[in-house]
């Protein structure tokens, strides 16, 4: 359970990046972006973020029934906190 706030912070970190890059992209594409394109671009940004986060997120949850131990999960959390500067 100690890792739950890290999940929230990592999600927020990635979402900030996603939105900033999405804005830049839409800005470059000009006005009158077709709805289909708008949607495809949004899906792209979510798809990349979600698939990249899947591994780390999974390894922040310690479900007990597999080989992932609590101490390993905490090590993952500390490493993510360091690498994404999530403590501040």
């Amino acid at each position, binding site marked *: *359970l100690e890792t*739950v*706030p890290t*999940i*929230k912070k990592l*999600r*927020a970190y990635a979402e900030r990046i996603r939105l900033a890059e999405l804005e830049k992209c839409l800005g470059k594409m000009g006005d009158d972006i077709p709805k289909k394109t708008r949607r495809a671009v949004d*899906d792209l940004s*979510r*798809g990349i973020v*979600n*698939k990249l*986060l*899947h591994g780390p*997120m*999974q390894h922040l*949850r310690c479900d007990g029934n597999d080989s992932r131990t609590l101490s390993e999960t905490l090590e993952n959390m500390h490493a993510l906190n360091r690498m994404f500067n999530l403590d501040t």
Partner: protein
Amino acid sequence: PKKQELISKLKNGKNFLRNQQLDKAFIEFKNALELAQNLKDPIEEKKAARGLGASLQRQGKYRDAIKYHSMVLAISEREGEDSGNTEAFGAIADCYTELGELEKAGQFYDKYIARLEKD
């Protein structure tokens, strides 16, 4: 015409959200929700519910935010179409984290994580 109005309310709501004008965003999304329900447009209905959830969440009204984020899940259930669920699970978990209910948060994060690999 009505559909046009709905789209424009959703757009206004988004812009207010972006500018942190959360009360105004709430009103736009609330109107959009009613319109979408009248028009029986579940996709836009979900967008309005998500917007309402986000407006409340940013105001620190986490319990109310959870209600609207859960509405997205309920609409998905009703329509047999699960777009927006990943975000809803994540947002609900974020709210429970803020409320200090980490056990519940963990349960919703698990649902969120299970969906991250899907499209």
